[in-house]
């Protein structure tokens, strides 16, 4: 096992372990922290995949913004967070079984398929190409605009919904 593989396993373990703790931990605030940890793990995997830009964005957006948002929500609904009841509902067992099954069904398919092993290298200007493709009318300009409009709408909606009615 090479160094890089060791690193991969490290990050993978971080991601999955933290992810598991996210859904299991009784205390909501801890759950968020684990979520952040798991996201860091994913960012690490991105770096291993030579998608540094995405890794950076991942950290900036997810950890810098989304998780903070979630933490705020947790604290604003403190009544729940302070004295948490049982974290899981009464169908948790069934859920566990199903999720497990899901993986068991998925794994052989993914593992069985003969994926190309040796990948060609990432072009040096990958990030630049990405940026250009996002504003290229023949590629992602329209979806890009769509996404921006959508997030704008989502934000306005969020403000409207969460605002104290008076």
């Amino acid at each position, binding site marked *: 096992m090479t160094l890089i593989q060791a690193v*991969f396993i490290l990050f*993978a373990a971080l*991601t*999955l372990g933290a*992810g598991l703790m*996210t*859904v299991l931990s009784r205390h*909501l605030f801890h*759950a*968020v922290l684990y*979520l952040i940890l798991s*996201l860091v793990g*994913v960012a690490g995997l*991105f770096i*291993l*995949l030579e*998608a540094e830009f*995405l890794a950076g964005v*991942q950290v900036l957006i*997810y950890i810098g*913004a*989304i998780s903070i*948002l*979630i933490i*705020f*929500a947790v604290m*604003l*609904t403190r*009544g*729940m967070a302070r004295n948490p*009841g049982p*974290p899981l*509902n009464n*169908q948790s067992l069934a*859920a*566990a079984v199903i*999720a*497990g099954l*899901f993986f068991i069904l*998925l*794994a052989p398919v*993914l593992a069985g398929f003969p994926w*190309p092993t040796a*990948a*060609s290298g*990432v*072009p040096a200007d*990958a990030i630049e190409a*990405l940026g250009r*493709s*996002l504003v290229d009318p023949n590629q*992602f300009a329209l979806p890009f605009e769509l*996404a921006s409009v*959508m*997030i704008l709408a989502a*934000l306005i*909606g969020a*403000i409207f*919904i*969460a605002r104290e009615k008076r």
Partner: protein
Amino acid sequence: MIPLTWYLLVAAALFCIGVYGVLARRNAIAILMAIELMLNAVNLSLVAFWRYLHPERTVGQAFALFVLVVAAAEAAAGLALIISIYRNRETVDVENIDLLRG
């Protein structure tokens, strides 16, 4: 070199964890977090495919970015909803939110 399968398996596992969370958590916020996990799993597989199948095309990364945007929007709107629910019903426990019970 790491085989693509490893990434895919990690992504699948993460996704299943997310599924479990969505199905089994009682707290709405926790469910939201589980959803974020699932989205990340998707992103991971997207990027992995990009890296191993078409590193010269930008589709994989672009879609990962879009997923990111969606995740942000979803978090914003979802949390807003949760908070307003909490204001009205003093709970974010999904089991108590069953106005549609037949």
